[in-house]
């Protein structure tokens, strides 16, 4: 099935593009499996994995959420926060 992946900030710099369409995702795959699939193409992503957040269709999501055809899956770094 086809999903759209969106990348931001340092992740976008690693991959070199902000959107990637992947058309070979098996049904039932989780957000984490999609990330690993992407990381096989872009190994530079691997070191970010533990710190990343994921959103499915623009809502914060769990890594074990199953994705559906046409979903928009975003991987991104935590928001910067800033000193209060």
């Amino acid at each position, binding site marked *: 099935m086809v999903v759209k992946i969106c990348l931001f900030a340092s992740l976008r710099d690693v991959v070199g593009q902000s959107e990637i369409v992947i058309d070979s995702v098996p049904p039932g795959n989780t957000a984490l499996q999609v990330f690993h699939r992407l990381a096989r193409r872009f190994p530079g992503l691997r070191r970010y994995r533990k710190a990343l957040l994921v959103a499915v269709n623009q809502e914060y999501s769990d890594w074990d959420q199953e994705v559906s055809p046409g979903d928009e899956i975003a991987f991104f770094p935590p928001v910067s926060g800033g000193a*209060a």
Partner: protein
Amino acid sequence: MIELVTTPIDREQVVRSVASPQAGAVATFDGVVRDHARGKSVTHLYYEAYPEMAKTEMVKIRKQALERWPLHGLAIVHRTGRLEVGESSVFIAVASAHRADAFEACRFVIDTLKTSVPIWKKEHYRDGEVWIEGYGA
């Protein structure tokens, strides 16, 4: 008013948008680009958003604040793209009958925004640039 903009924020307009005859207090927060960070001189910043989701998250924060405090108006405007030192990156205005609610809600909005709204900044220095990301937070 919840907006993501790429041009300078019109602060007066944001304040006017929350004005109400019932509001005796308007608290504002202005997030301004600073000329230094981490011991380095900052030449300018670049803000990048996940625009649709950033707007959704800002709407959620506004809703939470309106549920928690008796407010008459609440506006959040965030700017993205290249910003120079002294320019506003985010401006918040909160109106309530009395000042305590406006102050508290304004603080809640900026603190929550900084952890949940998908907007990142890149600091540019004379000798390089770095994404400021909340790893380990």
